[in-house]
């Protein structure tokens, strides 16, 4: 196959590209330039977006012996990921930009362009496994290394996208990937993993949002969930996340003296509702924008769901709705915010995903 290896400059994507080449594929390395001004994105020990990362990716491609190019996806990334991220926060939701990037950039813009240019697949350094079922459909399963499993952020991929994807690292523990990188002479073998949001250069998401959302600053009241009493005011509902405890700066202590948490954010009025920890417990969810890896379920499905990256699995029943699907959680969850992705699993297999719009409490 002719394979495009998306190379961030990190160790995982470098080893993934090397494995694809070793498997006999005709591999071309590409680094995605996601910022028009590369200096404005995070520098240092991260996985993408900086000139240094582009150079690391280039040197890995040299070592593997494959052609290498930089693709400028900055406009698409800004529109589909950065602006969406801002709009979600402005709307009182908590988005995951990595899912969005996988859905709209890596396995959409890059894949479509690659297919048109004559490539057959995109390979990345994500930790997930692909298996072809008896009927020919491609299934995505959790990675062997449970600590590194990234099937959650890939839960947005459709059958068409999965059929043109390669995840060469899914069967390996991370430690083995690093050893292999060193053995292959890849300079990035010891490069630290990336954890933060790549387009927020200093890792200060709150400060970044404050800067960008200054114009749409929606001040409002902080209200007690039980009494309805206004406990204070705030300078923008996007500063808060459901489940947040710190930084509420409420002068008045709760009646029972226990800590209060953000329970709800109403973006139109700007009202932030706070209450006790037990009020964060969620037993049901509504999800929209369903994306199914294969056939959509047409009946209630006994399954598990994961509600945040590296989060716990919850036993659940998923019921298709006209908008997407509803989820009854057999194992309740806490601190679930609208905007987060709900990824549905059948055992290790990813069934699909949706975006949480509403949570119901016990």
């Amino acid at each position, binding site marked *: 196959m002719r394979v495009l290896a998306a190379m961030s400059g990190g160790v995982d994507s470098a080893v993934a590209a090397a494995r694809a080449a070793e498997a006999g594929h005709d591999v*071309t390395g590409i680094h995605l330039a996601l910022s*028009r001004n590369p200096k404005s994105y995070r520098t240092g020990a991260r996985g993408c977006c900086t*000139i240094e990362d582009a150079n690391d990716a280039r040197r890995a491609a040299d070592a593997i012996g494959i052609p290498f190019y*930089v693709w400028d996806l900055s406009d698409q990334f800004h529109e589909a990921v950065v602006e969406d991220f801002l709009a979600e926060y402005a709307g009182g939701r908590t988005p995951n930009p990595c899912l969005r990037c996988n859905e709209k950039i890596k396995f959409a813009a890059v894949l*479509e*362009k690659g297919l048109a240019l004559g490539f057959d697949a995109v390979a990345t350094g994500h930790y997930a496994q692909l298996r072809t079922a008896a009927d020919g459909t491609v299934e995505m399963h959790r990675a062997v290394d449970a600590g590194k499993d990234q099937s959650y952020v890939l839960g947005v991929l459709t059958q068409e996208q999965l059929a043109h994807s390669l995840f060469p690292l899914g069967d390996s523990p991370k430690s083995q990937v690093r050893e292999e990188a060193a053995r292959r002479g890849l300079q990035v073998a010891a490069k630290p993993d990336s954890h933060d949001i790549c387009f927020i250069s200093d890792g200060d998401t709150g400060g970044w949002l404050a800067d960008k959302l200054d114009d749409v600053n929606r001040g409002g009241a902080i209200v007690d969930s039980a009494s309805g009493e206004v406990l204070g005011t705030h300078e923008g509902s996007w500063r808060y996340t459901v489940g947040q405890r710190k930084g509420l700066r409420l002068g008045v202590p709760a009646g029972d003296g226990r800590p209060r948490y953000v329970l709800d954010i109403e973006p139109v009025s700007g009202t932030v509702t706070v209450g006790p920890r037990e009020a964060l417990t969620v037993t049901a969810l509504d999800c929209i924008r369903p994306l199914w890896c294969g056939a959509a379920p047409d009946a209630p499905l006994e399954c598990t769901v994961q509600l945040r990256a590296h989060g716990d699995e919850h036993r659940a029943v998923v019921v298709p709705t006209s908008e997407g699907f509803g989820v009854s959680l057999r194992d309740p969850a806490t601190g679930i915010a609208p905007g987060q992705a709900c990824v549905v699993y059948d055992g290790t297999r990813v069934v699909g995903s949706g975006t949480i719009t509403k949570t119901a409490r016990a």
Partner: protein
Amino acid sequence: MTVYLDHAATTPILPEAAAAMTAQLGSVGNPNSLHASGRAARRVVEESRETVARVLGCRPGEVVFTSGGTEADNLAVKGLFWARAAEDPRRTRIISTAIEHHAVLDPLDWLAEEEGAEVVLTPVDALGRIDLEAFRASVESDPESVALVSVMWANNEVGTVQPIAEVVAIAHEHGIPVHTDAVQAVGQIPVDFAASGVDAMTLTGHKLGGPYGVGALLLRREVQLTALLHGGGQERDVRSGTIDAPAIAGFATACELAVKHQPELAIRLAELRDRLVREVQEVVPEAAYNGDPVSAVDHRLPGNAHLTFPGCEGDSLLMLLDARGVECSTGSACNAGVPQPSHVLLAMGCSDEQARASLRFSLGHTSTESDVHALVEAIGPVVERARAAGLASRSLG
């Protein structure tokens, strides 16, 4: 086999230049040392200086060896600005063009930001030639305030040759010194420093068959320049640093041969280039030929073909051609390798989309008919694929 169509980026070293350079690499001797070994090295440098002077129409004392084109451009632009402003603080303006190489544009930006210079970038016409009336108007609006003029001899992207004689005439009416970046011109078209009237001219070795890392600023003897590099006082005290005798020997040999063979090379390359353009357009009729369509050496560099392929992205075309062994350029690339739409094409009135859909093919002394043939064979399917990819990218919206 590689089909190399990127001679404007760098052209293969001439065997004679490599031989002259390697002969010196084995010899010890700092050209500024006073003993026999030093004198021998100094002799090589001075003979090289005389050779460069002879073939390019200047005096040996007017050749300032540098590390290449970028240094020569920086030395000319900053050095002239500082020296002229020191003489008369009213001289704060620099008049240049919108299509200069970044080795001129970026020093200009820096002078504007850090040193209070007022930079005037003269527009160009649709063929990429300086608008002389606009240039004259800029100069004459306040000639006393102009520190220098910098206009390239020939553009590196679209190959348009600039009317340097007219630029010099207008500037010299008011005693304003003129710098020209002739990096792309020497060896492709006739260049004579004295006859051109310019006060400073940038050259570089690796674009004319010499080694990398060496070039020169030809600088009229009476022109004062503030140094960028201070130290041992070499090169008229304008460019300190131990003189690189081996590189200079290779550079001078290449200059001599490039100028000697220029007339026949220009004829051969213009024919090849015209054929390249014609045959590519036969396969891809909508491909637009950018720059000056007239083949004469006072209009266009003979080795330059610059084409826009509507609906395609230049970087897709480049990648697909590269995969077929055909090497060319999208015209400009920054450090991160993120292609920006060419400032030259934008200045010529192209849209962002047209600018991004363009490729530069540049021919040089090793180019053959089979190179052109290989490109013509490859270009049809490549354009078809790149166009499909362009549509795929657009449909994302």
